[in-house]
């Protein structure tokens, strides 16, 4: 029953705060859709059939995208109902839509092959997903849905421990709790959320949203033990004695450093330290908040991934002149398109094909400049499809009083030293097709097995692991009952 639709080529824009205003604070940049605007955007979707829809194929967790979008149009006269129906569809695959709608690299995933792209702008799937989640949260609809689920949960009487409260661990915990397991999360920091709390800034993902998600987990009966560092406070062996299964979602928390002289000069931050001070500890409110951070007049951020953009845009909000230095060219920038666009709007400069070789300090041990080697790209590509680069032997020195290193991270060291846990050369936890590690009953997912990846992949792993754990524990129950 194909309904003839009028093609509307242009995207309905979301409301964005102007750059000159937003660079003075940490409030959210994109204000999203209202219900009316969301419906207008939803109407543009061609409603491709489920088996064909390229958007569903592009989404790592295969959300029924035309399905949830259609509810907004269908119940346009009853916003609460529209949102509830839409959320119910999204939740079947994704329990953190307010987050993914904001931070997924949509241009490489759901929106990449959207059919509308052939005739006009692609559907703004991310912003629609975010709208549904935000509206549901603001109107208590998500809780309503949750309270419908809770009484249906059948307790299994088995216990699962989750290591790390990032998107992977939170998702696994939520799914397992819904399946009736008794779930405890062990989190090293004082706040749950992982990178969503300490890494991604407030202006891109308000912390209140993450906190609300965590409250929902608590309502599902999940116990969260902050300040507990697995490997120190409690060992894997002890966890295995106390619990029937374990999930490792400890992320990739070890910052990589540039191997160049002067790396320990004052004023050189890893992006993790800088962002943790700013986001988790709210150093932008110093001295009202006690944790200090120093942002100079000239900031250079090394690296052009999401972390680099977040660091650069955070530094900009302290009034600094900010440059992103990247050893490759513009086509290889790995950050989300929207972030690069926002960064440029906010006046952040980009310098390509330069690689730091030395950090130069003053007599007090403070950084004052960076010496870079100029790089050149070859035609040959590496395994990730990026062009290979070589040094040219030519150098350039740029002044900087603050430097932020954002060149990537390795899996968390405290976990990868677990006796009996197999990890690869780069420290990534090795898992089988069911996400089980070399230790029976111990599963893993997210950045701990992938190195640095994305929120949605971490969540997808959490969900898959929950399924595997459920199968594993179902067998274990059968074995015990036999």
């Amino acid at each position, binding site marked *: 029953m194909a309904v003839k639709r009028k093609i509307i080529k242009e995207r309905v824009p979301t409301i964005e705060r102007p750059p000159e205003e937003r660079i003075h604070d940490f409030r959210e940049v994109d204000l999203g859709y209202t219900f009316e605007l969301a419906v207008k955007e939803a109407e543009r979707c061609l409603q491709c059939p489920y088996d064909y829809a390229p958007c569903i194929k592009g989404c790592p967790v295969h959300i029924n995208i035309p399905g949830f979008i259609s509810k907004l149009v269908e119940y346009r006269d009853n916003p609460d109902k529209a949102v509830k129906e839409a959320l119910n569809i999204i939740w079947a695959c994704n329990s953190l839509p307010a987050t993914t709608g904001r931070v997924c690299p949509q241009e490489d995933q759901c929106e990449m092959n959207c059919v509308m792209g052939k005739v006009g702008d692609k559907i703004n799937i991310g912003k629609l997903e975010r709208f549904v989640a935000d509206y549901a949260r603001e109107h208590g609809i998500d809780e309503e849905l949750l309270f419908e689920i809770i009484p249906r949960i059948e307790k299994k009487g088995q216990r699962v421990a989750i290591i790390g409260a990032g998107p992977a661990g939170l998702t696994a915990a939520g799914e397992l709790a819904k399946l009736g397991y008794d779930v405890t999360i062990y989190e090293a920091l004082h706040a749950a959320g992982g990178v969503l709390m300490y890494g991604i800034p407030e202006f891109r993902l308000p912390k209140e949203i993450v906190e609300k998600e965590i409250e929902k987990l608590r309502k599902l009966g999940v116990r969260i033990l902050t300040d507990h560092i697995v490997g120190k*406070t409690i060992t894997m062996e002890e966890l295995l004695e106390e619990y029937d299964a374990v999930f490792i979602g400890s992320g990739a*928390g070890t910052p990589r450093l540039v191997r160049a002289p002067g790396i320990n000069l004052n004023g050189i931050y890893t992006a993790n*330290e800088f962002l943790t001070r700013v986001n988790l*500890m709210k150093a932008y409110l110093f001295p009202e908040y006690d944790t*200090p951070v120093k942002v100079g007049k000239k900031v250079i951020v090394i690296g052009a991934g999401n972390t680099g953009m977040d660091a650069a845009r955070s530094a900009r909000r302290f009034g600094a002149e900010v440059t992103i230095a990247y050893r490759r060219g513009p086509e290889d920038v790995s950050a989300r398109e929207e972030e690069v666009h926002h960064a440029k709007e906010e006046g952040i400069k980009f310098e390509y094909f330069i690689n730091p070789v030395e950090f130069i300090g003053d007599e007090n041990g403070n950084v004052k400049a960076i010496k870079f080697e100029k790089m050149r790209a070859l035609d040959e590509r590496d395994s990730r499809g990026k062009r290979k680069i070589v040094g040219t032997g030519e150098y350039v020195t740029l002044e900087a009083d603050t430097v932020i290193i954002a060149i990537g991270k390795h899996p*968390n060291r405290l976990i990868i030293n677990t006796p009996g846990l197999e990890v690869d050369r780069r420290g990534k936890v090795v898992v089988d097709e069911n996400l089980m590690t070399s230790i029976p009953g111990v599963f893993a997912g997210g950045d701990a097995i992938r190195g640095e990846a994305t929120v949605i992949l971490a969540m997808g792993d959490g969900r898959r692991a929950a399924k595997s754990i459920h199968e594993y524990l179902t067998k274990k129950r059968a074995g015990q009952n036999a």
Partner: protein
Amino acid sequence: MGYRILDKKELAMNEVWYKIHAPHVAKKVQPGQFVIVRAFPNGERIPLTPVTWDREEGWITLVTFVRGKTTLRMANELKPGDELLNVAGPLGNPAPMKKFGKILAIGLITGMVEVFPIAKAWQEFGNDVTTLHVTPNPMVILKEDFEKAVSRHIVEGYDLQPGWGMQEIAQELVRRAVTKVRELLESEHWDLVFIVGPAGGQKAVFEVVREYGIPMEADLHPIMVDGTGMCGSCRVTVGGEVKFACIDGPGFNAYKVDWDELIHRVGFYTDLERKALEEYLKAIRGGGQ
């Protein structure tokens, strides 16, 4: 969650003792390890050292030297019955438990509290431990505890002079420490020297010990944020390599430490720390307290 303050008292001038209900730490902590404490919703995360603990009863004790906003605010605002928001740990590696022989374990000012669990364990392990506390006299702490725990406890105290600021106190500290350590190294044989205290003092003592070629370990105190190896704030250069003191340390071979770098790094926020303290003092005074 919250970690209840079971008891609190001022041990000596600016030295405050807390007994904290923190069973997860009490159960696991080893000498040489530390915790990260967050006391206020808008507060910092600061590393502190469990001095004593009871695994069964689930408490640890901490001693803070009131020196900046957080330690002052803790001293000023927290009462028995209140809760610390967070006590994360235990963190860092335990001190090596070996038969070294004759050990000189030095604590400069509040560094002494960190020496306590380690010196006691070394003594119990069969070493002959002498502890040396160099500090202004009004800040002498744990004297009886040390006298009970180790072979010999020496207090090298000095009186504060009117008009002295932090700098004069620190200069005198270094002068006393260096003189006393030289005297001890000159007159007796030692197998290991261990030190905890401000980096400048550690370096000065190290330079004396190096002349005698005695093995030396130091617990380092770079500025920490998470304490779990995630941020790199605590990085130090040891043996030419970048190490994270929170997960690779805090104990390191003193001969390999880049002391000047450490001294620069711990001083990075001095101006902001002073600002935070001044504003806090203004606020509490203005508030009529």
